[in-house]
């Protein structure tokens, strides 16, 4: 029972959205890397109530990740340098997919590779799993083959990765963009042109922290990615720029802690949102955000969430 506790089903606003063919019962997804494979939050969180679950990033082979320390708290945010530790696609299919298959909620597999080939291969390997409703392609990682430059920092590379994934994937492809670029619209247009069915943004902002007492970096890898409420204003700006640059659906991510934050992104034009760091602070954040959005729609007389998408009143 997803909607228990609602008195008047007649006036209940409709929350369902369609992101490039993936049907979500509401626009709130758990962001990659912040919700494990769902099981970590079960049974505390009713997984059937979520719009979608994005898995932790999956690579072809298992990855060790970076040595600790991997996280540091900053002012209203945190930096992580997990280094994309994951079990690899094979163990994912064997160990994680059965659990996820029990729920009605669409699962979107977040994938990344060290080479363009890796991306294509991953798409192929995930094609046959009914539970995987779509792919989210993380292009915010270094391209090992071309010297560590990020795939997501260069429109040409981004285009190539997406074209390759699209060639193999039987599922809708969401491309997740890095915010650490001069002009997000160039990347957004490049991946749209390459056939992306949707884009999601933002991934974390590159950041750093130092302990003045020990004069050491607070992360073993020196750099990491900043997430959490501190980055929301930057994320919202990038989402708005992307929304105005492409026609495919945009999914807003970055610092969303409550339904007001989520509404900012939706009003700016995001068709759906992802909740990341908030899951750590408040494991039931996604559920509260879903309920909060629904209450807002009801109080403001909206019949359907889509009426709100992109409804920003500019001067």
């Amino acid at each position, binding site marked *: 029972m997803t909607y228990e506790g609602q008195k008047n089903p007649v006036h209940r606003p409709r929350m369902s959205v369609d992101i490039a063919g993936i049907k979500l019962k509401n626009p709130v997804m758990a962001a990659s890397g912040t919700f494990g494979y769902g099981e970590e939050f079960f049974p505390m969180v009713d997984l059937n109530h979520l719009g979608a679950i994005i898995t932790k990033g999956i690579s072809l082979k298992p990855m060790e990740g970076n040595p600790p320390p991997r996280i540091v708290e900053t002012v209203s945010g945190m930096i992580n340098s997990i280094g994309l530790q994951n079990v690899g696609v094979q163990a994912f299919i064997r160990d994680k997919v059965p659990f996820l298959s029990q729920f009605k909620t669409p699962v979107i597999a977040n994938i990344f590779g060290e080479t363009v080939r890796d991306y294509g291969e991953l798409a192929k390997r995930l094609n046959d799993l009914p539970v995987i409703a779509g792919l989210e392609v993380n292009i915010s990682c270094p391209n090992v083959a071309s010297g560590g430059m990020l795939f997501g920092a260069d429109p040409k590379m981004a285009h190539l990765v997406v074209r390759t994934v699209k060639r193999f994937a039987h599922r809708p492809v969401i491309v997740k963009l890095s915010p650490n670029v001069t002009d997000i619209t160039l990347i957004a247009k490049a991946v749209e042109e390459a056939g992306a069915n949707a884009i999601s943004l933002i991934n974390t902002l590159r950041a750093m922290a130092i302990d003045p007492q020990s004069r050491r970096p607070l992360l073993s890898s020196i750099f990491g990615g900043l997430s959490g409420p501190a980055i929301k204003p930057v994320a919202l700006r990038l989402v708005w720029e992307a929304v105005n640059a492409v026609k495919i659906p945009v999914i807003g991510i970055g610092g969303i802690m409550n339904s007001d934050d989520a509404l900012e992104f939706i009003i700016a034009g995001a068709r759906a949102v992802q909740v990341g760091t908030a899951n750590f602070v408040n494991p*039931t954040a996604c559920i509260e955000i879903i309920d909060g959005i629904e209450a807002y729609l009801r109080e403001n007389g909206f019949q359907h969430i889509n009426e709100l998408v992109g409804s920003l009143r500019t001067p």
Partner: protein
Amino acid sequence: MSCSPSEGKERGGPYLVYGTLRKNSEVAPSYHKMRIRTPIPYGDIGPGQFLMVRISEEPFPLLRRPFSIHSLRNLRIKDGSDIEILYKVVGKGTNLMASWRRGKRINILGPLGNGFSLSIKMGTQFLIAGGIGVAGLFALSQVMKSQGHKCLVFIGGKTKEDILCVDEFQGAGAEVHVATEDGGMGFRGMITDMVESFLQNRPKPSGLFACGPVDMLKTIAEIAKSQSIPCQVSLESMMACGLGACLGCVIRTKAKLPLRSAKATSQGWGVSFNRVCKEGPIFDSEEVDWRGI
């Protein structure tokens, strides 16, 4: 390892609940003890498990803070349970906690982590605490008493103000030995030296159980190894989720299987990096790769 929703529920938690602060008093300079009443029976807590406490409903300080569940008493009172935390005031979060007053609603997530393994040989057990490390060992001494082990508890600290819970441990039937670096109480010197001299002069204990600063744990691990005594240590690390989801809290462990073998990965998460919040916080001292810590 597929598991059905109902199987999951049987695991008994973790629970996300609001409790009510019943007591929050300074037990020694900069050490506080907090008692929180929760509306539910707080699950089957094992000694060595911990909670994540939400420090603020505001975005700063952002992350929850982990604290050991200090005691197992009063966990099954009528209408719920009373949870105890013993904490040292060290920074932003713990300073805020120290200011909380009776009646405050507190959001807690737990129980978390593996807890100490109690599949141990019957006999005398050494519990070794450095400073606030007593917080995580008292519950263990309670269980050991109920299981009929004899506990020797070693507590070390800089000064006598850092020696906590002596009465509590004695109340749980343990024999308590104290060392302070300045000699203000008990033996003068490091607690690890005291443990070593006990090991030389007394019958070998069945196990060592240590909680405290990392240097102390390293020394205890070496002692345990050289004397071939099984040893469990309680480790700390920076945590974001406490649930095993963020992979932020890992420590390096000795990979027993080559990382990329099918068998290794079927264990689930990383083999050479293990999560303190999930595979830990209690580790076999032999498993830990101490160079990386």
